[in-house]
Structures are given as structure tokens and as C-alpha cells.
């Protein structure tokens, strides 16, 4: 059975991904050295990964296992980036041999 094309919405997602990628680069230059830069970058990374997961992989209609695996993975690095930026010394002490 043929279904209606979702090309316009996929194109919008692609444009959003390009804009967010270029925007994060600009943000990196603008907020150079700011303690808030990692927080904003982490939010942008999560948004981009969420868009790919939701619209390209279609996790919304996927088996719960797929949805959970993707959700956990895309949350890991942004969370770690924020934690490392604000609690880097504590993490370094905790992760020392």
C-alpha cells in the first residue's frame, strides 16, 4: 500500500539540523570561555539527536526497546557534558585510580 510522502517535513527537519549545527558553531565563538556554553551546547546536541531519532528513525512508532535504547544514548553525552563542566573536579577525584 502506498502512503503519502513526508518529504516536506523531512526537509524541514534537515534544515533545522543544518541551522542548529551552524548555530552551535557561532555560539562557540560568541560564548568562548563562558561557563554556560557547555549547557547550551548540550541542549542543542540533545535537540539535534532527538530530531534524527524522532523523524528519521521514527522511534515514535518503534518497539519500546528501540525507543529506550535511543533515548538513553542521546541523553548520555549532553548530561555528561553538563556534569563535567560544573562538577569536573569531583568527577576527576571520583574517577582517579
Amino acid at each position, binding site marked *: *500500500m*502506498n*502512503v*503519502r*510522502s*513526508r*518529504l516536506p517535513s*523531512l*526537509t524541514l*527537519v*534537515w534544515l533545522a*539540523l*543544518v541551522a542548529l*549545527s*551552524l548555530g*552551535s*558553531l557561532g*555560539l*562557540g565563538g560568541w560564548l*568562548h*570561555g563562558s561557563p554556560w*556554553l*557547555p549547557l547550551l*551546547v548540550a541542549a*542543542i*546536541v540533545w535537540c*539535534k*539527536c532527538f530530531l*534524527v*531519532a524522532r*523523524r*528519521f*528513525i*521514527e*522511534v*515514535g*512508532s*518503534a*518497539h*519500546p*526497546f*528501540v525507543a529506550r*535504547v*535511543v533515548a538513553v*544514548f*542521546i541523553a*548520555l*553525552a549532553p548530561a*555528561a*557534558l553538563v*556534569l*563535567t563542566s560544573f562538577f*569536573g*573536579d569531583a*568527577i*576527576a577525584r571520583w*574517577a*582517579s585510580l
Partner: protein
Amino acid sequence: MSHAAQMSGTARRFPGNKGIWVGISCEFLEFAVMFALYFIARAHHPEAFVAGAERLSRIAGTAITLVMVSSSFLVAASVDALRAGLRPRALACLSAALVLALAYPLVKFLEIGWNLDQGIGGNSGIFFTVYYYLTFNHLVHASWGIIGMVWVLARLAWGAYTPEEHSGLEALGSYWHATDIIWLVIFPLFYVVN
């Protein structure tokens, strides 16, 4: 199971097939360990990570990001076109995705040459050791995806997929989107956050 039933939410499915999701889960686990290594190294040597990011080529990092995002979009567009019964468009989109994907190893090759010209090698410090470790691993995973894309493109051209049954194309899409997600995490960690 019909596509309509799958998309209605009454039957939750594995995009592609279960096998590819075993592979993707292993890929995610592998990169989760490598990201843990990155963050532990960053917590111990924050100054090396700030200084290191300044020395990498942002043009190369941005080019790879645009290549990954765009080829991922084209693979999704190819799946979408086949579902809508537009096989020539599906072929064109997947062919374009492959051409774009092939730009990734090319840009990486040029980036490494540029790095070496700047004296940036694998033993230039903790930041660069982690950078080479993570980005080379990603390149290896992307190369598997490119090989898979060639195979799926050939099968699509031979008429192996139909609007009703195209799990092979979806499996490739799932793998390539997952590899795209991993790059979307890698890019800011090395090229943006400083």
C-alpha cells in the same frame, strides 16, 4: 504486517529488523564507553581540552557534520519515496546519499593531512589521543555504513524492495541515522566546546 498497521501504533516494530538493532545497540554501547573515556579525560585535563579544540580544523568538522546530516536526510527521503511508490526518486535519493557519504572519508583524509602539517599527531597530548581514538572509530563505523549503502542501492536498483517490503532499506537507514547521531555528539565535543 502492513505498513499502515505498523505506523498506526497498534503494532510497535523494529525499524528495519531486529538484527540491525542488536548491532546498533552494540555500537551505542561501544561509543558510550568511549564517551565515558572522553569525559573522564576532560575532567582530569580541562585546560588540555580547551586548548586542543582551538587547534582543530572547524571547517573539516563542520563539513563532516553537514555531510552526515544531509546523507542521513537523503536516506530518510529514499525510504519515504519508496513507501509512497516513487521508486525512481528513492533510487535518486539513495544515490545522492551515497555520493555525500563518500565525502566523509575524503574530508577526514584531508583533515588528517592538515593536522599532521600542524604537528598534531596521536601523541600530541591527551586531547588529541582521545580525538583520534573517537573519530577514527566513528570513521570505521561510517565505512561499514557506506559499504551497506552500496549493497542496498544495488538491491534497490534490481527491484528487490517494494513499497510493502523494504526492511533492508530501513535497516540501512536505521544504522546510518544512528551513526549520524553519534557524529552529532562527537562534533561539539571536539570542535565547539572550548
